[in-house]
């Protein structure tokens, strides 16, 4: 079926199979930051924004994005660099495979929550798994990021 969707502000019109997942559609469009880490909506690696809200692109059909705006890390380079630099300064990027989805969620959290506590941050990000860092370095980077503005 035919869809029209905006990815990182650019309009696309495509003929796709009805069961195409947003994750696969985005990768096919060259958004390689979007990673698949599981098959059960548990890891958070594939997080993108749909109409400004973080969603797991593995659990959204591409057709659900019809006439909507999708943002991936490719469309968020400036903010990704800002937070990513803080993450790197903690050494908390490590393998980096969970970073895009994690960073998309962190930026969404900053937009959504006003002065979150450490517990708020943990709860908001509970769905973003990381096997390398043990989460502490990520938290140090988030604290500095929230302090900045």
């Amino acid at each position, binding site marked *: 079926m035919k869809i029209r969707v905006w990815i990182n502000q650019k309009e696309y019109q495509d003929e796709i199979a009805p069961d195409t997942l947003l994750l696969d559609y985005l990768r096919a469009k060259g958004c390689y930051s979007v990673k698949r880490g599981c098959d059960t909506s548990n890891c958070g690696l594939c997080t993108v924004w749909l109409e400004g809200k973080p969603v797991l692109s593995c659990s959204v059909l591409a057709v659900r994005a019809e006439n909507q705006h999708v943002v991936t890390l490719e469309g968020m380079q400036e903010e*990704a660099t800002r937070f990513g630099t803080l993450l790197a300064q903690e050494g908390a990027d490590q393998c980096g495979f969970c970073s895009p989805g994690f960073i998309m969620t962190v930026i969404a959290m900053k937009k959504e929550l006003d002065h979150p506590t450490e517990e708020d941050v943990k709860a908001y990000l509970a769905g973003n798994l990381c096997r390398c860092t043990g989460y502490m370095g990520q938290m140090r980077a988030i604290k500095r990021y929230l302090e900045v503005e």
Partner: protein
Amino acid sequence: MKAVNQAIPKIDSMALVTGKPVYTEDLAPANCLVVKVLRSPHAFARILDIDTRAAIKLPGIACVLTHKEAPKHRFTVAGQSYPELSPYDHLILDEYVRYVGDAVAIVAGETESIVNRALRLLKVSYEVLEPVLDFTKAMDHPSVIHPEEDYENMVEIGSDRFHNLVSSEGFEHGDVDRELAESDLVIDREYHTRANAQAMMETFRTYTYYDHNSRLNVVSSTQVPFHVRRILARALGISASEVRVIKPRIGGGFGAKQSVVSEIFPALVTFITKKPAKILFDRYETFSSSNSRHEMQIRVRIGASKEGAIRAIEVNTLSNTGAYGEHGPTTVGLSGHKPLPIYNQANAFRFQSKVVYSNTMPGGAFRGYGATQGFFAVETAINELAAQLGMDPIALREKNMVRVGERMPAYYGEVLSSSALDRCLVRGKELIGWKEAFPSRLVSPTKVRGLGMAMAMQGSGISFVDTASAEVRLHDNGYYTLQIGATDMGTGCDTILAQMAADSLGCDLHQIIVHGVDTDNSPYDTGSYASSTTYVTGNAVIKACAQLVEQIKEAGAELLELSKQAVEFDGDRVFSLQEGKEISLNELAQRLVFGSNRVLSGTAAHSSPISPPPFMTGFAEVEVDLETGKVDLIQYVGVVDCGTVINKNLARLQAEGGIVQGIGMALFEDIQYNERGRMINNSFMQYKLPSRLDAGTVMVEFEESYEPSGPFGAKSVGEIVVNTPCPAIAQAVYHATGVWVRDLPITPEKILRELRETR
């Protein structure tokens, strides 16, 4: 030192945090055939027939491969130095399937959906055999898992495969029986550690193609490119010179990618069809068709005087290697060789081990590599001894632990050349608030907090075996390339090796361009495992840089028309103060590509006759709900002696990450099978990884020692950090509840059951 011992971001960081396409899947060409594997539904069966006719007829299907088409060269998938200690018990596709999830057939086609359809059309008839599902009964079981005639051991490892015994080994120092008989107190306990999934975020993946020279190129998420090259060549029956392996960025490994897991399938497809091919394991497949931490049953006996002087320790390990023997004979050794030497004041040690096959997913390498299992058993037994003696567990350790300058009979007779273990104990005790909170305190009518601790060591590479080489080359712009065969899998080894090179050459970090790994270009390295990279590859980098410095001085002296002895090199220029002459590195580099007969390049290899142990102490505070048995980790303190800390951030992250993996192993992680041998928790929905809600507060500090044989005084840090949480948390739970849980993970059910039984 300008770069070493600093907190420097990883040199590849910005590409990773901005989501650049740098991983295997991102780089695979669009025209790759999609490769998938049909998996066995049976734990043990012989394939009688595979009807591929309907599948092969589907438009877009390139090939359907069964054991009939696959090469018959038996090999091990273990990424170890040749000759491997792991048995040659694998074929790419075999007539027998030996666990649920074992490979039955390979299908390659143009799209994923067509390949999925073809997989559903394959008709396989099996002769189902009686599986061995309880590894403790494997040796007496009537089923023989590996009866094949071409089974081969490269090295004598004490095997008896017709009794499902992969290997057996042991050692004894002193007279254990006499010491135990004369001890005031003997602790005799059995512990059980479970199979755990490495669960790196990037699943297994590989793509393959033939290049313009008709050579098989393999781009793969692997920790061991050179081993992959050798193993693939053997499995396919071709020369290793026909195979090239490239490692891009890797999304974590933790040992899982120290085995050839995904490479063999697209390699065979490309070998047969000559077309590019790729395979991406999904998460289910990664859980149930790869490898895990070896499940072990470990009996520990400790004899001590009533004053707490340990006289003898005996460790007896039975390890479950699952359906294939990769890493089985080697991991088990660490369950004895790592925990025993730390109690060096004992008079006698004995270690005995057996590794057995069963029809479950194979074990493999997972951070800690058997030491983690051994430390849970021995450190818990030590903690049980402290409880029986009524002695502070820290004091008990201080009385019995190894000190610098001592020969360690249980550690291949090595002499301990560096240790800050004593300081790690003192500092950890302060940080956790041991004096105030030991052993436990009631925080509500139903909740108790308890403290626990443990200590551990690991090695720094495999002595006499691991071999790393490095090449550092001066370019015409005054920059250097550092070629390494060590594999950065997110740990940051490209960065720490560049730091070492920068300080060795007296230049800025940004003047070093790190390149790895491509087996056609990179110098040989056994790969990133066994806590070897910092120590072994680091030493190779230092040697290569020292060679290059000599060459720079020689070339500079020639241009200055001085003798080599008369000049110095400070990183920026070659000069002689006495003669008042100098030439900058830039100018020198330029002159070397203009009518020159010189190339400046240092290449060196390093192997070590010793494996100096890093040390660590871990302290846990848990809160146990006595009504539900639920355990919350409140805080964890880790104090690490890895010698000189090369990169303060990256070492800290290694420690924090390793501790949280250990917390997962202690409290949640447990690969389980049903009565037919099917893994029942093969997803993140069912297999619990620690999330950020489960990790409590983890605090890490370093107590540096200086290892004389290490690069800039460094030892390893990668694996040591996973070893303390299991025993420390087990003791903290005991202090909170009075219950020892000796069978991991420490679940609410086990705590409640024990509590009810003791009441």
